[in-house]
């Protein structure tokens, strides 16, 4: 799941400078689940924008709506009626959502309310952690199902650095050393042999190197 976090109110208020009619758009999928941009957060942010304006003695009109997924043309289409009446659209979707709305509605100012953070899981209620970098060339088969690319602070592929101490990463004692986790897991699976195979330098062309990536599947195309 995509995990995001709301930008600070100062930042949001600054980008809305001069806008008096704003539509806050929530996304009903990933960011609802990670509690950053669902219907509830839309209500909270809209309320705060009105209060901020009241505080300054301005009048504003803040619209609220939440659509199923901001990254699908069909759902985004639902915003068409009325969207052009606003000075700005404040998207509470991830970066994909913001851009989809922007692309669909030329001439409309679309602004991000969230910082899109990572692909991760709720480790527990209220705490999300990064699990996958979307590197384009998955290695989990060789690492016991624990991703060194995303979860090792340095993205090392051939075992830990010297900073691994008592299972913790030298970057912070709140971070588990991914390579310790990998080792423990492989040990429990009886597959420490996997560690003997050397990782070749990672082929980053499958990631950012080749420019924006694309997945194309002709068999499902219309």
């Amino acid at each position, binding site marked *: 799941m995509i995990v995001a976090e709301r930008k*600070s*109110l*100062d930042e949001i*208020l600054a980008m809305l400078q001069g806008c008096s009619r704003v539509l806050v758009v929530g996304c*009903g*999928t990933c960011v*609802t*689940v*990670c*509690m950053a941009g*669902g*219907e*509830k*957060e839309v*209500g*909270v942010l809209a*309320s*705060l924008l*009105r*209060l*901020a304006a*009241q*505080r*300054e*003695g*301005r009048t504003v009109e803040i619209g609220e709506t*939440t659509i199923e997924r901001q990254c699908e043309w069909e759902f985004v289409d639902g915003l068409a009626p009325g969207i052009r009446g606003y000075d700005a659209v404040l998207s509470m979707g991830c970066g994909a959502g913001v851009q989809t709305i922007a692309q669909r509605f030329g001439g409309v100012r679309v602004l991000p309310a969230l910082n899109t953070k990572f692909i991760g899981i709720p480790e527990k*209620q209220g705490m999300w952690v990064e699990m996958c970098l979307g590197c384009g060339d998955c290695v989990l088969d060789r690492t016991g199902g624990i991703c060194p690319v995303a979860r090792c602070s340095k993205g090392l592929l051939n075992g830990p650095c010297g900073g691994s101490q008592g299972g913790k990463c030298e970057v912070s004692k709140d971070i588990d050393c991914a390579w310790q986790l990998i080792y423990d897991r492989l040990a429990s699976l009886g597959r420490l042999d996997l560690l003997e195979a050397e990782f070749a330098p990672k082929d980053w062309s499958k990631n950012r190197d080749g420019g924006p990536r694309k997945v194309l599947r002709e068999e499902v195309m219309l």
Partner: protein
Amino acid sequence: MESSRVVVVGAGVAGMSAARSLAAAGARVTLVEKGERLGGMAADYACKGTDRCNKCNVCLVHELVRDVKSRPDIDVMTGCTVDWAEALPSGGYRLKVGGREVGCSAVVLATGFEPFDASARPEFGYRVHPAVVTALDLEKALRDGGGIGERFGRPIGSVAFVQCVGSRDLQQGRGYCSRVCCMYSLRMARAVRHRHPSAEVTVFYMDFQAAGKDPADLRRRAETEDGVRFVRARPSEVASAPDGRAVVWFEDLDGGRCRPAEFDLVILAVGTGPGRDTRTLADMFGLGLDESGFFAPADPGDATATGVPGVFVAGMCRGPRDIAESVADGERAALAVLREEAARRAGQRLALSLPVGTWPGRRVLRGQPETIEVSSTVLVLGRTVEGMEAARILSDLGCRAVIVGEEAHPDGSSGLAHSLLARVDEDSSIDVLAGGRLVRLDGQAGGFRATIEGPGGLVSEICAGALIVATGYRREFPEAARGLAGRACVVGLSELGESGVPWAVGEEHRKGGGGRRAVIWVGVRPDTARAVFRQAILAALSALAAGWEVYVLCPEVAVAGPGDEELYLEARRQGAVFVKYEEEPEVQAGSALRVLVRDPCLGAGGAGDDVPGLLAIDADVLVVAEEAYPPPDAPELARVLQVNTGPLGFFQDDNVNLLPVLTNRRSIFAVGGCRGATGVADAMADAHVAAYLAARLVGTGNLHVDWATARVDQDKCALCLTCVRTCPHRAVGVDDEMRAAKISRAACWGCGVCTSECPGKAIALESCSDDEVLARVRPAVTAFCCDHSALIAAQAAMAGLAADDAVGDLNIVSVPCTGKVDIIHLLKAFERGAEAVMVAGCFDEGCHFLSGNRRALLRVGQAASLLKAVGIEPERVRFYHVGPDMSAAFLEAAQETMQVARELGPVMRRRAG
């Protein structure tokens, strides 16, 4: 029970609880109260919450009053009593009540108690010395709010509590412990310190009688957090000092001299005696009284029955008990009435007729009525005496019971265990899956699917409407004595069996000839002491009878059970030596058993002693009272059941609203040892109440739900699982077909916590949707009040105010739980022009929905920081703990909030120029 009427006499907590329960089971009830108002003695008490709930249970009383008043099926008559009674030949009674004749099939007497009149001990100066008041006076002062000093017209730099006034006092003819005063004083001591942080509080006591939820923790907090001083001494006199202060004379333990100490205020912890009308009523109905003058039970196993058909007793009138115990007693009496009724009807099984209500029958919002088909099978986990007893009662009530579990726990009550085993065996409505273990539980109240792993890994599935957890407890030597287990001449107290210990047991353990000296070491936690202590004294008595010399070592003497003080005194009379130690005894290694213990009562004095008061006892036998611990698999079982456990790991949350057998999940009950109630009598009482409640819930095969519940709009649900995780009652599951969350109406308590947590705004609470809440938010200072606590206080506060000294335009918005308050509601109130907003609800650990108030506290904190982020003063949004009886505290909170509103003015700033 369509046609039958039950008359309940006395509207204290016990009477109200019985009336409510009987009405819920379909009986017509007349509740007769001599006074002018409902609630009994406890209606005058104060919530003793400080920074947290201190588990005094007073809040339950106020709710109970409201419940009873709001039930049309309870006919309440105040200002009258039963003038005469005539037994009818067909069974039942004709009674004359307040000039009216009432026919009824049964009578429940719940006439309560009379507090000891402190002026009967003139040496304590009550009504003579202005610095001396009773605990009842203090209850009222605390309840009315304001300064305690002002109330009594005294400074309040130092306060003393004097325990056992009119209790454990043979001279007053009150040779028993009143059971409730140690705990009420402890809680009041905390409350006094909380309100007057500079007051120094001392408690003069003989022995600390622990009861209720986690008493040891309360005492520890009182001592360490509040600095309350506990002095073991029985004051002999309260005199006047020249400066008007009171002088408490007490016997100093170190040295045994009488010493004076001066205090600004002395509180006499008055005991509880039989109610005024007990004897008259006993004569009227032909009932027996015990030697202290309380109604005597005819059969200890069925304590609310009197032996006279159609007459039952509940609450304090049958002996000292606290509020929670009295509420449970009311339930038990209701059960006993119903069982008798059933027996009368040609020995048929009781077909429970009517709606169950929720229990405790707290007021809930009404919802769409619906009848849900449920399984009337009840799964009992644990083949303990309490488990088997519950199954037996369930069978009487027409339910099928399935008992799963190991052999019965050898419970020091083996006679009972054997007869129950036989009874369970021959009952065709009870199945036993010996050696089975619950490994998985799906479904919800009324329709659980339990996966049981039998011996040899055999897996079976049982459908059950309700579950009773009766897995017992684990017995082990207390920490300090752990190393002694298995040593020669050391036996566990429970190994000695019930009363009449065969002291030949000593012979086997005795080395050689010589002295016959036994040391009985009762070093258990206070919460288990009550159950164990009686056994210890019985053991001591039988040893004495067999000619042994006996020492009993214990930190406290626990004598709060019926007849226990008498037994204790008897043991002392017969020569048993009781050593109330402060430091754990030491058992010296080596071949002989030598127990070293310091007796603080012996004090210094003894010249040449290195350690004052040190005794060295050479014992032939050391009997160690075992401590109770949760069964080893309790954490795992709790996880499977999704049931909360308390601080010691026993089942049941630490919340006062879950007394005595409820858990956080509807229709899962915890009874006896597994919830820490290790005494056999307590365990039996639990079994009765739980069986009755389970039968009421699912016994007819139909569960009538008419309370408001939350519902998920499944189209909007993103299946984020927030509701599944945050519902305090675990009422939310996943609807696999719809790929959405789904709330069980049978299991939902209607708190609304999930509705304000759902990030998709996909859940609405019936009768209290967000729109309905927001419709009540208008441009004014707003107080969101919990329906179960602050709202009751607010209503009382407002009723007592003249229109013009009201707090101003305060908009009170009631919510079923503060957890229902959504952050959006708070922000919207400001948007609509509120200058300040307060949220008021139960104390921490006192929430009616367990954790709703904690959610609310987080919400208020979140709102404050968000407001700050947009330049609005965070102090405009506030949270207050207000118990239902705390109208004064509510007013203070409201005034403070209004003050903030006035000072800060409107949120909206006028545009400059």
